[in-house]
């Protein structure tokens, strides 16, 4: 199934009209009668011992209902769960689990860590009460610099560990040292990949409402993981899962950080609601979001590439430091993604990669769109640029020589990934993507005509051409339930939650085609744990591939039920029946038909006898778990011009070639890629979370954390879908994820183009996040 009436078409989104008119509810739009408001008092210090927190004065303020510090939670206080398992699948790996605590006790480990929760009649009052809370701490020096933190044991984030090492994971394919012996050229560099925020436009929020009569905890949360929260709240409060109902409202963007749980809100507020028997609401503000909601990137790479004279890669080595922040609850998803993506494009027979994951006095690091992939791709692409310079060949030539060809796939890279199985590059035409991109941007014309002409006029213009992969759609599994109701309308419920990815439309497209109903008659419900309670969560670009496949499988089961029920009712064999829009009819006799709604009633008899083994209703549940992830791939070409005076780069043109497998909705895919691209541009040129040497975050507002704006987008942006047909489909629909692809290649493509624009010997960019003043610094260095 690659096309249908809806599947494969640019169907306009079903959810739009209500969203456009302000007719949907986001987190802060939810108000529960009788609710109280929570505010978290957060630490100003990044690293300190807590001597005393005195809330007695604050409790006297009118409107303040309760204030809790760590002590007040008694035995309930404990470090949270490890949310992602340790990397035991990788031989010799070392991992020190120090999981997030819900509220600081004894010691503060990052600035923004929660010290007290104030519950009051209004949020204004709750924050007023902060002024009356007396906090006495003994400040400690902060651990901030990654490389220093690894070596230096004089200051420890976790006192019970001998060092600040969170993990050490080495993976080797072939033998790098052997390859190095045979190499003609060895190139090594140290590179930085800066710290960035997810920065969804909607901040996080949480409501816990304990219903004492019914003994049910209802939770509203704009989370990417409703089922994780249901499970953890049930466990923590000693309730059955059925007593915890998590609802996700409309969510204003996710991009990764909203996947994180075991934070102060989802741990403490249900407990407080149970205690006070009142609904408790908390909405994060932007500063809190910057300080304490997870963020990502922040790696230091020491890379070495060895090659033959003709540019053939013999081996690649990468020892990199990865900042996990103060705790490592989210395991090693990000650095493992980096490890798999470093060599996922090219023929690299010998590869050595070492993750040195460090604890620092900074907020916790978890995936953000791109999630480790961007870093691995940046490291490899940059090293190829440096190697090409060393060899005196063009950056394009070195890539054409080493890119994997369609016939080389599937390929087992031998590197274990975030899903703890060996990375398999399933299908794609990596070389073809790159060639297509070269042709589309007209690389030769730029080199022969445009650039020389610009130079002759004294203008700086450059081109960058890179390749990338996007590992997507990893397991374990997702599922859904499809029900045909007696009105003939179809409902699909999944535990997967939605943050703007058009799930209400794309899943409906799959189902409407399978059941031959109008798409408007398919209602998709996401992230309501009372309607569907199994699944892992929204991450790793896996919704369309996993939930989409489950929807397809469940729809087929429902279809089978429709046929068997109709065959009995119409007294004709199943082969003689077909689906007409919204009904079942006998082939060749469209007048003999039963509407689906009526069939749904018949499938639920109120009297009489039901044969053993028959399930009532036109309803089915299906799950889908892939054997391994599916790898999307592509290439990006960028043309930049540089302002004479300010050194500010302008992206004149960007061409992205992408292969995300079968496309359910081209319009939606394009939107995903464009959004990802803006994030990639932001990460490269504007966005940066800056911590000073004391662990203070200096960029906790949009005044200092610069988001990409409309005028920062390329003057001209073209996206080309280049699907390599392959017999190997990891999932039944051949879908690969596409949520993160856009964010991956802009970094290396833009810096390559900037270097090319200057064309200055020795001018080398060794980091992401490049302000005009940093470009100037690099130029100064080159001049020396």
């Amino acid at each position, binding site marked *: 199934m690659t096309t249908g009436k809806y599947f494969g078409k640019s169907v306009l989104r079903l959810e739009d009209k209500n969203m456009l008119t302000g007719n949907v509810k986001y987190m802060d739009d939810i108000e529960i009668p009788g609710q109280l408001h929570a505010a978290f008092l957060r630490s100003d210090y990044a690293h300190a011992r807590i001597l005393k927190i005195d809330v007695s004065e604050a409790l006297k303020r009118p409107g303040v209902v309760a204030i809790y510090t760590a002590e007040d939670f008694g035995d309930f206080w404990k470090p949270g769960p490890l949310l992602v398992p340790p990397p035991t699948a990788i031989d010799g790996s070392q991992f020190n689990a120090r999981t997030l605590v819900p509220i600081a006790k004894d010691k503060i480990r990052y*600035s923004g860590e929660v010290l007290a929760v104030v519950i009051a009649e209004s949020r204004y009052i709750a924050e007023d009460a902060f002024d009356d809370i007396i906090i006495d701490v003994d400040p400690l020096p902060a651990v901030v610099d990654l490389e220093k933190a690894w070596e230096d044991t004089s200051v420890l984030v976790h006192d019970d560990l001998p060092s600040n090492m969170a993990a050490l994971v080495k993976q080797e394919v072939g033998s790098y040292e052997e390859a190095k012996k045979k190499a003609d050229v060895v190139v090594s560099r140290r590179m930085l990949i800066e710290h960035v925020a997810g920065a969804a436009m909607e901040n996080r929020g949480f409501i816990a409402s304990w219903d004492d009569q019914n003994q049910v905890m209802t939770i509203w949360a704009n989370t990417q993981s409703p089922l994780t929260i249901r499970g953890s709240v049930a466990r923590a409060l000693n309730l059955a899962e059925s007593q915890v109902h998590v609802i996700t409202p409309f969510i204003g963007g996710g991009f990764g950080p909203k996947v994180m749980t075991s934070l102060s809100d989802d741990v403490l507020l249900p407990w407080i609601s149970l205690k006070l028997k009142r609904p408790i609401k908390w909405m994060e503000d932007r500063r809190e979001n910057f300080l304490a909601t997870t963020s990502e990137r922040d790696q230091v790479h020491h890379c070495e590439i060895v090659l033959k004279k003709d540019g053939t890669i013999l081996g690649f080595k990468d020892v990199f430091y990865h900042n996990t922040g103060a705790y490592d609850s989210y395991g090693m998803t990000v650095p493992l993604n980096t490890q798999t993506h470093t060599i996922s494009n090219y023929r690299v027979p010998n590869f050595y990669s070492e993750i040195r994951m460090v604890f620092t006095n900074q907020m916790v690091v978890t995936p953000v769109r791109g999630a480790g992939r961007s870093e691995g791709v940046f490291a490899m692409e940059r090293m190829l640029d440096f190697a090409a310079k060393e060899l005196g060949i063009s950056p394009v030539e070195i890539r054409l020589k080493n890119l994997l060809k369609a016939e080389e796939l599937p390929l087992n890279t031998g590197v274990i990934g975030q899903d703890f199985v060996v990375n398999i590059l399933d299908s794609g035409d990596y070389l073809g993507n790159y060639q297509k991109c070269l042709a589309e941007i007209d690389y030769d014309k730029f080199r022969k005509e445009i650039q020389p002409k610009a130079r002759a006029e004294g203008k700086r213009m450059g081109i960058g051409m890179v390749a990338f992969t996007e590992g997507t759609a990893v397991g374990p599994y997702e599922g859904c339930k499809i029900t045909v109701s007696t009105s003939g309308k179809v409902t699909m419920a999944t535990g997967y939650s939605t943050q703007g990815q058009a799930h209400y439309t794309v899943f409906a497209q799959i189902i409407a085609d399978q059941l031959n109903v109008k798409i408007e008659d398919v209602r998709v419900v996401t992230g309501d744990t009372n309607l569907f309670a199994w699944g892992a969560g929204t991450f790793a670009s896996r919704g369309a591939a996993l939930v989409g496949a489950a929807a397809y499988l469940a729809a087929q089961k429902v279809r089978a039920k429709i046929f068997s029920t109709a065959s009995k009712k119409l007294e004709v064999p199943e082969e003689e029946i077909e689906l007409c829009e919204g009904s079942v009819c006998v082939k060749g006799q469209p007048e003999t038909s039963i509407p689906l709604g009526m069939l749904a009633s018949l499938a639920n008899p109120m009297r009489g006898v039901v044969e053993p083994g028959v399930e009532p209703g036109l309803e089915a549940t299906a799950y889908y778990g892939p054997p391994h992830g599916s790898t999307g791939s592509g290439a990006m070409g960028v043309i930049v011009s540089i302002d004479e005076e300010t050194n500010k780069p302008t992206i004149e043109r960007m061409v992205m070639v992408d292969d995300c497998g079968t496309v359910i909705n081209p319009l939606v895919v394009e939107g995903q890629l464009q959004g990802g691209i803006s994030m990639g541009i932001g990460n490269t040129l504007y966005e940066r979370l800056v911590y000073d040497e004391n662990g203070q975050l200096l960029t906790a507002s949009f005044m200092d954390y610069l988001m990409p704006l409309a005028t920062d987008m390329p003057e001209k942006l073209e996206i080309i879908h280049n699907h390599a047909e392959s017999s190997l489909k990891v999932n039944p629909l051949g879908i690969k994820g596409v949520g993160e692809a856009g964010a991956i290649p802009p970094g290396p493509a833009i810096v390559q183009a900037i270097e090319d624009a200057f064309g200055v010997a020795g001018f080398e960019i060794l980091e992401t996040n490049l302000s005009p003043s940093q470009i100037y610094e690099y130029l100064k260095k080159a001049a020396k």
Partner: protein
Amino acid sequence: MKVEGDHLFKAPREVVFEMFNDPDALGAAVPGMQKMVKIDESHYEAVLGIRVGPVSANFSGTLALTDVVPPESVTLIVEGKGGAGFVKGVGYVKFEDLGDQTTLLKYTGEANIGGTLASVGQRMIDSVAKSMFKTVFEKLDKILEERWQKS
């Protein structure tokens, strides 16, 4: 944050130095100072209102004078905290006698800033600090003028 600068006072070194040890003079000179009391010979307690861009808050804290070498030099240690964060700083102040009834004050120092003040206000802190120093010296000039003339 590092601070550095100098200021020329039109008074002999002893007079300038004495003024620096007078809480009333200092208290009057610092903009936003709401209270400044001497606890002992070398310690003061103060409450100060600061506004940095979007952040405004009261800070309470202590000022300690150490390594006092009259009338040549003094080291100031400031520690304050409030709703908008904390400040911890040390300043080294030297008084140079220029011989013509004028004194050159030179200072260097370093401050640690944390909390909202740092995370939201850091862009402005440098300029706020500069303008604060400017106001302090202007006020001290005035105070000095009055005292110097009186005596």
